[in-house]
């Protein structure tokens, strides 16, 4: 279990994270999202006891990162973003070093290395020098070192970056399988990955948490608008003109005129309003054949972009208001 309260980290005068609060229950896989420079890596570095916080507290398995750093590190597997490995080492030697560093008892060491190598699919390259491995295998070695010692907490920064689709699926399945007995924090920019793998999502922007929920709740509650996909037998201008007049419709966009005489169009409306009956009614009134109509659920990517953009606009307008106050 991970508990973070009022976590703050300053680099000089700049706050990389400010008053961050969240909680991750044991057995949960949590996606940690945010644009570059949002404070994800800083939060992860504090949780892994790599760097101390300037304020607030972070507890891992009930132990404080400031006071019980060594005990926490014993229970933790970490995969940093760029997978920094010792390139000159053979995979086997590297994993042996990690096992020794993580204090895996000598008798269990070779068994543990074999278990982890099998789990991430490294058997073929155990004798190879890390420098000569492909990006995918390097990523697996990074994941393997995090898994050595069977830690109950895993913190993974971009674990599938650089992998091919088959490897991505394998690693995702592997991470999913962790949920039975491990707590996982997963940072990634691949948003569909979050929907597939994570139980919950935490979105951080400019050092503060701006949203925290399950992926489905987030897409339901944070979508700024609802989109309808409409296919009708009419020209694009006729259809656009007909749909624009519907109350609560905020935008109409032609996708394509696929078959001659048929138009695909996207209708955007306010999120709380279902405009499908109005669309059907108006098209019938105008004698336009309606071929297809369906609501498109906002993706996590849409939510993420909306939230991050809103936050940006909000803070920009806030800053502007502050500036005006100072000026007056």
């Amino acid at each position, binding site marked *: 279990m991970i508990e973070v309260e009022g976590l703050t980290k300053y680099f000089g005068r700049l706050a*990389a994270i400010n008053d961050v609060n969240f909680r991750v229950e044991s057995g949960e896989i949590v996606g940690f999202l945010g644009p570059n420079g949002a404070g994800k890596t800083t939060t992860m570095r504090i949780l892994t006891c790599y760097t101390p916080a300037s304020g607030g507290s972070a507890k891992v398995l009930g132990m404080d990162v400031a006071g019980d750093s060594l005990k926490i*590190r014993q229970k933790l597997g970490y995969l940093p973003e760029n997978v*920094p490995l010792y390139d000159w080492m053979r995979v086997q030697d590297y994993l042996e*070093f*990690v096992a020794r560093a*993580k204090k895996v008892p000598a008798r269990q060491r070779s068994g543990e290395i074999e278990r982890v190598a099998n789990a991430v699919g490294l058997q073929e390259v155990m004798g190879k020098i890390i420098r000569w491995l492909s990006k995918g295998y390097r990523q697996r070695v990074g994941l393997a070192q995090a898994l050595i010692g069977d830690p109950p907490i895993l913190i993974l920064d971009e674990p599938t970056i650089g992998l091919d689709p088959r490897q991505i699926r394998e690693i995702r399945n592997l991470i999913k399988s962790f949920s039975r007995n491990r707590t996982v924090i997963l940072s990634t920019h691949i948003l569909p990955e979050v929907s597939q793998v994570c139980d919950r999502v935490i979105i951080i922007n400019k050092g503060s948490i701006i949203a925290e929920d399950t992926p489905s709740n987030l897409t339901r509650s944070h979508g700024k608008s609802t989109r309808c996909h409409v296919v009708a037998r009419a020209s694009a201008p006729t259809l656009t003109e007909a749909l624009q007049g519907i109350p609560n419709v905020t935008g109409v966009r032609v996708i394509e005129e696929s078959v001659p005489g048929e138009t695909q169009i996207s209708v955007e409306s306010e999120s709380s309003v279902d405009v499908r009956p109005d669309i059907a009614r108006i098209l019938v009134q105008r004698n336009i054949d309606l071929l297809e109509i369906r609501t498109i659920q906002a993706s996590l990517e849409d939510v993420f972009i909306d939230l991050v953009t809103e936050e940006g606009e909000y803070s920009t307008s806030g800053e502007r208001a502050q500036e005006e106050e100072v000026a007056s």
Partner: protein
Amino acid sequence: MSGWYAVFRKEIANFFVSPIAYAVIACFLLISGFFFWANVSLMSLVSLQAANNPMIAQRINMTDIIIRPLAQNMSIILLFLMPLITMRLFSEEKKSGSIELLMTYPITDSGVVFGKFLAAACVLVVMLASSVTFPLLLLMVGEPDVGTLTGGYVGILLMGIAFVALGMFLSTLSENQIISAAISFGAALLFWVMSWITSFAGETWGYVIRQLSILEHIDSFQKGILALSDMAFFVFFAAFFLFLTLRSLETYRWRG
């Protein structure tokens, strides 16, 4: 110092898997071997010339012509070569980013520092041990002063260990290995020649500077004297820079 052994093994492997240790040891043996050969040649030449002059012959001895110059030359060679051993200790980890993983393993900072220090000190010991051939050759052909030989080696070992600590600290300051090596060499040279300015520094400062100078403390070893104060100097010198290395790592953690 939890976890130092894992770091020590990794560092030793790094030194001896890569050509670094072999190249440095080969350079050390080649240059010190050249000086040894030159001094032995000088000794044989002077001995030949003194064969007809008993007064000069009485004054000629191996200690003055071969052993002491060998110890002095080896000290200076180490001054140049030790930065090449220590430059990568932390700079390489910082450059590659592997320090982030290392510092999140359950190893204390003191364990990391001690493991790296011990590995570099081991390379020094191997380097000095491989040069023992020179005194062994002298023992085969003559009767060199074993006390001066031992003193010379103990002095070089202590000085080398002090340089390891100094170089390791300076390698925490930069992620560029060339910069680490350059400042290590500069700092070691400064500690070496410090006593040259004592005559301009006034009585009190002159004394302080003399006490900090490596040249002042290595001299007695090369005369075969194992003075406790000189040994303590090198031990405290190394301990001080190990302490600074730890503080530097702590600062690095804060900077995130």
